[in-house]
Every structure is written in structure tokens, then in C-alpha cells.
């Protein structure tokens, strides 16, 4: 059991999107707990609701068409969903920060990067511009950008993708937040740059001690970075356990399928095709009845097609949402 203080406690979060073509239940009952200093990985395929969860924490869901219609998000014991906009604004960028997937378009093209980072600093801390500039240069240095004084007055288009992502990280960490949310922050980068950024994040986490919520569809990333992993499917969490447990003994058929489909170089050669999970992610407009994974699950029974399973703690610290979890 984790002894650290609970930082963020998401209970039964439901965020729906009301579009012309119907209602999309993007997040439909997600529970998640993040402790102080914990690195939690949230994994799932596109459309499973992981990004929407992150945006919901910071209440950045575009409305219309989206709306958080239920649940609670406790931050230090206070429900974020009940706070007014002004209080939320003070939390964003200061106590909880977020970095995004596309470094190429996530920075404002008409302002220098120094300006943008300083803005983040002066918004939340009562210091003057000169001091903010100094802090900005320090942050640039911290994230490994060479010649930070010169880079201060550069524009985003003068930097590569990897560097822009570092700038994003500098901006996000400038007020020493308690939680950093990384929404597929490395997905759009080359593999080598990706590795650099992940190293950077790991180093900063050790140094600054913030919690990180890593959202990705890439199991390799969470294998490297996360202590705890939550697997999301079709708007719900289907398995939640320590990283070791997930990789050693996955209990949910979906998790099992995901892990089985990763090519492994250490196994002996066979001539069999790579096992893949049959079927496709369900359309948000036509969710299957019962367990959402049942159309693709090799172990599905009549019960699975009729009822939705609740999430249960099978062994301490290992939660699974399934009627027939795989034996460990």
C-alpha cells in the first residue's frame, strides 16, 4: 500500500460530448488515485478517454460540445469540479501543469519562448519581470537547452520539435507544480528525441519530486517511467496495478492481449504471426451492451454480454474490471 499522501483522487468521473451525431461517453466512470511524487501511467488506445480524463482534471474540456457531467476530482481533499473558474485558474500552471502532444503547434508563434515562459511565472508568483527572466533562463538551463540567454529571445519556429518540447516542460515546471500531466508528450517525436525527453522527465522528477501522470498508448514508455499503471478501455479503467504486476501478471484479457502483441526479441523464434486482439475499438456512438470489451474478448460469456463488471481489488493494490480475470 502506498503511504504517501493522496494528491489527486478521481471518483467516478463522467465526461460526455454532445455532438450533432449523438452523445459520446468519452469518460464513463473513471476512478484514479495519484499520490504525492508518484509516477502513474495511463495507457490505452486512441479514443479510450485518457486525454479527456487529463483535460477534465484541469477543467479544460471545450464546452460545447463537452461537459463533465458527474463524479468528483479531489485535489488535496477539495473537489476541483466545485471550484469557480478563478480558483481553477490559479491551480493551472501552478499546482497542476500539463504538457501536450504536439510541440510544433503548442507554442504561440508570435511571442518569444522566453516571453511565454516568463508569463507562466509572473502569472503565479509575485516577482518582477527581471527576476522572472532570470528564473526563465534557469528553467531553460534545467531542461537542457544550451545557450539559454540567447534562446530566451527566440521564436518557436526557430527551434526543433525536441527543443520546443523542452520549452514546454520548462514552462510547465516553472512554478514547481505538485502534479505534471504529460499527455502523449513524446508521441510526436523521433525515437531518439523521445528517449532524451523521457530521461529529462525522469531526472526532473527525482530532483523536484512532483507526481507525474503519463498518458500514452505506448507500453514501452510506461515500462520505463511508471511506478503504477492504469489501463483504460472505452471510457473506463479496466486494470490498475503496479508496473511490475501489470507486466508480470496481467489479469484483464485486454491488458493480456496488449502485452502479447508486443514483439519480443528474447523469445525463441517461431513462425507464428504476432497475436493481435481481434476486432476494433467500439464506436463511441454504438457502445456494446454489458462489458465493453466483450466483442473482442476470447473469454467472453453470456454474463459478459449482459452485465457490466464492477472494478474489484483482486490482490492488494491490483484492481481489475472483469468477471473472468486471468489467473496470475
Amino acid at each position, binding site marked *: 500500500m502506498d503511504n504517501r499522501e493522496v494528491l489527486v483522487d478521481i471518483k467516478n468521473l463522467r465526461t460526455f460530448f454532445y455532438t450533432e451525431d449523438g452523445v459520446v461517453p468519452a469518460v464513463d466512470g473513471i476512478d484514479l488515485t495519484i499520490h504525492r511524487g508518484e509516477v502513474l501511467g495511463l495507457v490505452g488506445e486512441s479514443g479510450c478517454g485518457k486525454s479527456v480524463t487529463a483535460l477534465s482534471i484541469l477543467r*479544460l474540456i471545450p464546452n460545447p460540445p463537452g461537459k463533465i457531467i458527474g463524479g468528483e476530482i479531489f485535489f488535496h481533499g477539495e473537489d476541483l469540479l466545485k471550484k469557480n473558474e478563478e480558483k481553477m485558474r490559479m491551480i493551472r500552471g501552478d499546482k497542476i501543469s500539463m504538457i501536450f502532444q504536439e510541440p510544433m503547434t503548442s507554442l*504561440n508563434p*508570435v511571442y518569444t519562448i522566453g516571453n511565454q515562459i516568463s508569463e507562466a511565472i509572473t502569472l503565479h508568483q509575485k516577482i518582477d519581470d527581471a527576476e522572472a527572466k532570470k528564473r526563465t533562463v534557469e528553467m531553460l538551463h534545467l531542461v537542457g537547452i544550451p545557450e539559454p540567454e540567447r534562446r530566451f529571445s527566440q521564436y518557436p519556429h526557430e527551434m526543433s520539435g525536441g527543443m520546443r518540447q523542452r520549452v514546454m516542460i520548462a514552462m510547465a515546471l516553472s512554478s514547481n507544480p505538485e502534479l505534471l500531466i504529460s499527455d502523449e508528450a513524446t508521441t510526436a517525436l523521433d525515437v531518439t528525441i523521445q528517449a532524451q525527453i523521457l530521461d529529462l522527465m525522469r531526472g526532473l522528477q527525482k530532483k523536484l519530486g512532483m507526481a507525474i501522470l503519463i498518458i500514452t498508448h505506448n507500453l514501452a514508455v510506461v515500462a520505463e517511467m511508471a511506478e503504477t499503471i492504469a489501463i483504460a478501455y472505452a471510457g473506463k479503467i479496466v486494470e490498475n496495478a503496479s508496473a511490475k504486476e501489470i507486466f508480470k501478471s496481467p489479469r484483464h484479457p485486454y491488458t493480456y492481449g496488449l502485452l502479447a502483441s508486443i514483439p519480443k526479441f528474447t523469445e525463441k523464434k517461431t513462425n507464428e504471426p504476432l497475436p493481435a486482439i481481434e476486432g476494433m475499438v467500439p464506436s463511441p456512438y454504438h457502445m456494446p451492451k454489458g462489458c465493453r470489451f466483450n466483442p473482442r474478448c476470447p473469454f467472453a460469456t453470456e454474463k459478459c454480454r449482459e452485465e457490466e463488471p464492477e472494478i474489484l481489488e483482486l490482490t492488494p493494490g491490483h484492481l481489475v474490471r472483469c468477471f473472468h480475470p486471468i489467473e496470475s
Partner: protein
Amino acid sequence: MRDYIIRRILGMIPLILIVMIVSFGIFSLVPNPFAALMENPRIKKADIQRLIKAWGFDLPWYLRFFKWFSGVIRGDWGPSLLYPGSMARDVISRALPVTMRLMGIEFLVSLVIALPIGIISAVKQYSMTDYVVTVISFLGMSMPTFWSGLLMMMLFSVVLKRPSGMPLLPAGGIITPGLEEAPFWAKLGDRAQYLVMPVVVLAFFSLGSYARYMRSSMLEVIRQDYIRTARAKGVPERSVIYKHALRNAMIPIVTLIALSVPGIVGGAAITETIFSIPGMGSLFIAANVKADYPTAMISLMLTSILVIVFNLVADIVYAWVDPRIKYS
């Protein structure tokens, strides 16, 4: 930046040349430019011969062009056929400031109204305000200026009258006769009443499209990733719109506005005619009606050059405002 400006100015020259050739070319299509004059019994044959020689009509077209070209460059624009006894240069230089004043005021009024409502329309998309603004924009863009001009004249000069029995707003002209030598402020007040209707008519027509451009540019920008980043940083919504979004949205607007200038300059021609304003537009039309082709040529050429110069200014403003433009 300086090199960019110089290069742009040099780039103007071929455009100006083409414009001069086209202006000249169009009127050269007239089979017999002096037909109207020849029919006038009061004009002697010898005078007509003199004109033919002066204008170079006894020469082949390429030589005639050079003769015209050198004359124009030197400022010798020949006699005015519309106002016999005056030089074309004087007639035109009296008309030019009138048009520029009208266009200048109209332009300012248009932008001052259109841009803010475009912004509000975008920020409150799909609201009642947006709807109303959209409808008004369309109404403006669809109403031909001569019709709205005539309607306004009907309303403000025929129907509505002042206590003295005079029309509420004068139906034409630019200044009350006799006040030409009046002190500046008296003149200003007097001028204003003559300008109200033409400015409103022209502005109504163009503000529709400006508001739509501003709206669609803002909408485009608000959807961008960097706006989401700004919000995630904790930037207050007001700054998000006016600091982060607006600056980016204005960039394409500069170009769009520059491109609309030819349309406005052209549209002024009709308005000037209806309201009997002695500007370049009505001069041009009168010249065409009365077959004063030399004046018409020069007038067309000048208005085009005005547009080209305006485009140059717009290009420079654009480069200044958008740091991504490479001055290469």
C-alpha cells in the same frame, strides 16, 4: 527588414508598369476616340487635328504608348476634355483628395466597427450575438451601394426634414456653397453632414465582409493548440483572447483587408456619383460617359497605383507583425 522593404518596392515597379499598360491598352481599344468631338459642330477641325497630334494618335501604337508614358511620368497629363479650358492634371488633383478623404474615413469607420464585432462574434460562437452579427454582415454585403444610397437619400433628404424645411441630411455635394473659405472647424462641421450618408453607405457594405473575416480568423486561431496551452498555464480568459489569440488572428486580416481595397475603391465610384461627390470615382465615370479617354486612362492608372501602394504597406505591416516571415 530594410532589404525586405527595398525588395518589395522594387517588386512594385513591374506591377505599376503592367497597370499602366493595361490602362493604356483598354482605352486604345476604342476605335475612334475623337468620335464624340468630331460630331460637335462647335469644335474646329484644326483643333481636333491638334489634339490628335498632341496625343500621338497619328503614331503607331507602340510609339504612342511611349509618348503617353513619358508624358505621364513628367506630369504632363494633357488638357481635360471634360472641362475644356482646364488641364487634366488640375482636374484630377482636385478630385483625388476628395476621394482619399472619403475612403479614409469610411475605412476607419468600417474597421473600428467590424473588427470588434467580429471578435465578439467568434468568442461567443453560436450565441444570439453571433447570429445577429452574422445576419447584419450578410445584409451589408448583399445590399448594392447604389440602392442603399438611394434609400438613405429618400429617408434622410426627402422624408425627414429639419424644422426649417430643409432636408435632414444634404442629398449631395461635399460642402455648402459659400463656405469654402470658412475657418477650419466650421468647415469640418459642415463637411461632416455631407459625408455622413456616403460613409454610412460604403461602410455598411464593407463592414460585413471585414466582420466575417475577423470572425473566421479568430475562430481558426482559437482552435489552435497554443491557445489550449495558454489556458493550461492559467492565463485568464481575457488575456487568452486579446493577448494570445488576437495577435495571431490579425495577421491574415491584414492581407484580406489589403485585398479588399480595390473593391472598395471601385465601389466608391458609384457612391460618389449618387451623392454628387466630385472625387476620382465620379470623375472616372463622367470621363467614360463623355468619352474623355485620356483623363479616364490616367484616373484608372492612378487608382490602381494607389491600390498597389496600399498593398505594399500591407505587406510591410504583415512582415512586421508575423515573426515567421523570412526576409529572404
